[in-house]
């Protein structure tokens, strides 16, 4: 496979929590270390805060415990692919309704006495700031991890995207080959479910979470895969 598709040209090929230490407590940056079975070996406070638990509670937990099986599996596969290249690599994902860039290094084996991955998650709003990454070829995980957005249907997720891009109901209707009335119904349903008061609030929500930073085809795919991920109620029934 083409390694350039996911690798980053940064100096360190191996990373450990100690190397990250000066930046611990740096806001908006989640850092964690997992072993090859994705058991959490270490995380910074920001990661704990984002997951809504303490770091101690998270130690030893796996990806499967914080997201659907398909979603966890896809992320594990990507992590392994990156580790196999021998270089640090990156991908985009939706996590907690937000677009994140996930960067993966090989974990310094000396840090915990085992092989693993050192992972840094940063919110990504779509600006291409460096040329150490080939953004055009960076993968996007196809399984989204939704929180509030989970309430929306696939079609509503698409309408949300177009509306946030600034399209009028008329334009969205044309794009989706639906009537304006249908689109307006979708918008009303989105506003009701998400408790938006007005179009500006919808745009703010989608922009602040980096949703409009996805390319159209990426978001369409994520919206479609939303249905693939079983929600909690279905999961227990099957």
């Amino acid at each position, binding site marked *: 496979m083409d390694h350039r598709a996911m690798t980053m040209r940064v100096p360190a090929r191996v990373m450990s929590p100690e190397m990250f230490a000066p*930046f611990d407590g740096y806001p908006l940056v989640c850092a964690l270390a997992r072993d090859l079975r994705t058991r959490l070996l270490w995380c910074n406070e920001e990661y704990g805060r984002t997951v809504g638990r303490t770091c101690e509670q998270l130690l030893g937990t796996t990806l499967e415990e914080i997201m659907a099986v398909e979603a966890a599996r896809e992320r594990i596969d990507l992590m392994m692919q990156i580790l196999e290249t021998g270089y640090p690599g990156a991908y985009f994902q939706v996590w907690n309704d937000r677009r994140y860039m996930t960067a993966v290094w090989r974990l310094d084996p000396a840090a915990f006495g085992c092989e693993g991955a050192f992972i840094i998650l940063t919110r990504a709003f779509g600006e291409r700031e460096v040329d150490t990454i080939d953004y055009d070829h960076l993968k996007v995980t196809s399984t989204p991890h939704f929180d509030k957005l989970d309430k929306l249907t696939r079609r509503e997720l698409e309408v949300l995207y177009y509306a946030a891009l600034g399209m009028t109901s008329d334009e969205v209707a044309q794009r989706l080959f639906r009537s304006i009335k249908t689109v307006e119904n979708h918008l009303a349903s989105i506003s009701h479910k998400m408790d938006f008061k007005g179009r500006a609030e919808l745009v703010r929500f989608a922009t602040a979470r980096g949703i409009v930073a996805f390319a159209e085809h990426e978001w369409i795919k994520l919206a479609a895969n939303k249905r693939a991920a079983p929600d909690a109620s279905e999961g227990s029934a099957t």
Partner: protein
Amino acid sequence: MATAAPIPSKGPNPPHHANHPDESPDAQPGVVYCSPGMFAPFNGYPGVCAIARDMRMHILWCNDEYARMCGKRVEELKGTTLHDLMTKEMADERRDHMLEIWNSGRPGRYVQVWQDHRYLTTVWRLAPVSFGCDGVFVLMTRSTMNQMSGLDMVDVGLITTPHLDLLGKLSRRELEVLYHTAMGMSTEDIAKHIHRASKTVENHIASIMDKMGYQRRTELVRFAVERGILGFAESEWSRIAARKADGRERS
């Protein structure tokens, strides 16, 4: 200047490079240092500008990302000061904040507007062994909002002089109206809020759209969110807008 979490200066496996502060004979106990060497593993990481300055704010070192944001090469930037990049008021305010943090001996933070964007800036004492002199190590990351999950922003300072690019075309009042519009307020609400006629507010909005080259209000909302303008509290943004006017009158 306290921070949300203690930033350890030493771990069990210190990074192996020449500039580690623990090798410095001059390092003072209890003071937290940082250096380009410690940042090295992250160099090239997107969205993070890193700069080392001496006590007179001359650039000793910066990463590629910072140079790119300034539109110059790293070599060109070496030896330049904040005063070469911005007006005296702006440079002075930032320098004073950095020196205050340096004096505290602990890393400190402030938010500022740079190139129309809201940045969170973290300042450490520069490990003296790095360049043979005292200075500051500065990291800048775009910050569209305060961490919603509860990062304590109480100890984060505010730079009131904005460094504006496209937004520099807007008047003080237009900057305020931009904020309220992006927050989703109707023309009437804004008019009441700033004690002006609806007609006046409409004119302001039309002027903003014209100057920024936008056709729709939603574009304005996106612009304001992406640049982190809504990350400021209303009172903060008013102060920033007011300082903008100062700068313009003087020039």
